[in-house]
């Protein structure tokens, strides 16, 4: 048997697990959170897809950044993101984390979230509908299959740059660097 095939065969269950069991961090970063309750409850029932909210970042592997990110929130987001175990996936929800959205000239919100933490996928719109979350989830599945959802690796490899960017807007952070 081919060695690579064997490795793939061993790796598949983990991939399957990562795909169909997305536990999302419950973090209401912005107004996008208003569409999360409908998504996880009766009408849309995200649990069908294995998407459920997790209590703490330690238990989660999916981070939905639901809306604009103010500086104070950014700090919490970084902390929460760093506490999640790998592999972890981030999805930016709404137009604000993409480029600032309608708060493009606000002094207190950051404009491009992917300069501070890696983002695997975006859902555009203000407000995106719950269906859009499912489309994002299915896209994420494809990305996991093709090893494209590798934001956490990017974060590890380019940690210095990320940390520098974070410190540029937030001043010093309260915790020591995650990777040395």
């Amino acid at each position: 048997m081919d060695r690579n095939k064997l490795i793939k065969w061993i790796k598949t269950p983990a991939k399957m697990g990562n795909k169909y069991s997305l536990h999302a961090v419950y973090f209401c970063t912005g107004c996008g959170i208003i569409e999360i309750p409908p998504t996880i409850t009766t009408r849309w029932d995200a649990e069908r897809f294995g998407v459920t909210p997790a209590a703490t970042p330690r238990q989660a592997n999916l981070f939905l950044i639901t809306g604009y990110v103010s500086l104070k929130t950014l700090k919490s987001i970084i902390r929460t993101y760093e506490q999640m175990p790998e592999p972890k996936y981030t999805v930016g929800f709404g137009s604000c984390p993409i480029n600032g959205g309608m708060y493009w000239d606000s002094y207190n919100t950051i404009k491009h979230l992917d300069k501070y933490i890696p983002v695997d996928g975006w859902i555009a719109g203000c407000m995106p509908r719950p269906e859009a979350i499912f489309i994002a989830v299915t896209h994420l599945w494809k990305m996991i299959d093709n090893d494209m959802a590798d934001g956490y690796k990017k974060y590890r490899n380019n940690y210095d740059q990320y940390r520098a960017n974070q410190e540029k807007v937030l001043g010093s952070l309260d915790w020591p660097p995650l990777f040395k």
Partner: protein
Amino acid sequence: MRELELYYGPQHLGMVGNFSITLNVEGDRIKKATANPGYLHRGFEKLMECRTWMQNFPLVCRINVVEPDHIELIYSMGVEKLAGIEVPEKGKYIRSIYLELARVASHLFGLWAYSNMLGFDTVANWAMYHRDLILDLFEELTGARVYHIYIRPGGVRRDFPDGFEDKIIETLHTIGGKIPDYNSTFFDNRLFKKRTKGIGKLDRENAKKMGAVGHAIRATGMKYDIRKIEPYAAYDQVEWDVPTRKGGDAYSRLLTIRDEMIESVHMIFKLINKMPKKGTVYTKTPNPFKWKIPEGDAYVRCESSRGELGLYIVSDGGKKPYRAHFRTPSYSHGLTILENILAGEDIADVGNIMMSLYVVAPEIDR
């Protein structure tokens, strides 16, 4: 090292909205609670100063994501008052119906949040489902689920489509038909009463001192409701009552919310009956790009689902507002009252009390 500092939020399953409470805890009793807002601060009022009067509409509704409609209304009312615009009769009725629907949707969201705090998934799921039915109505009416931007200075954007009134009535009947289920599983549940009675008690004097409005003060027995006191839209056209409770605790506040929802539904039926069948729904306003509003300032207020919502708006006679300041009900509820009534309570009741006051974080931060 007697006191323990515990963070409740921002990343916390029991926190609805991006808000944080720092609890100083001894044993499982809270000694001191410090509200820590600002996670959603975008500098709205500053941004409004950089945009024209009409450009501000997409912006203001995002102040409160749970119930954007009342914010649209208050901003329209402010502009109308400054510019001296009258709303046509039918526009007033449609505004009232629309706002009451929004109130029911918002309260259902509150019910979701509250039952979720108690770990009551079942009711939470039902409430969210029923809220979605109302959001479907909004979507048909305005094209958006959450941020509708339906109210505009001088009335509403468009008339009800054909047969929309029937759809409203049908949807509300669907929801109303489930009220017995809600009552038997939730409001009449013995454990629910055990969990909520006597929690987060706010007596009349303290409520007044700390600026309580909305259901927080109505739960102490006072019929303080801007819709009655200073009627706007079509609230003075129909008969309705302000539901109150005596206890002042979380239980009374929750039951006030429930009664309010039922009262709102009845009001919608009356309004639909009484609404003029014909007529315009808005007064024409000038070209929004050149629209200048005369110099002056105004304070307007309305009753949102969480209480008195106010807007202090100043115009310097230009194309843009000079200064706008929203008085949001969650501001006093979430900062002054919450900090005060959390002291001495159990850790287990933090989310419980917060949601019984219906604190919505973006409203505080703006």
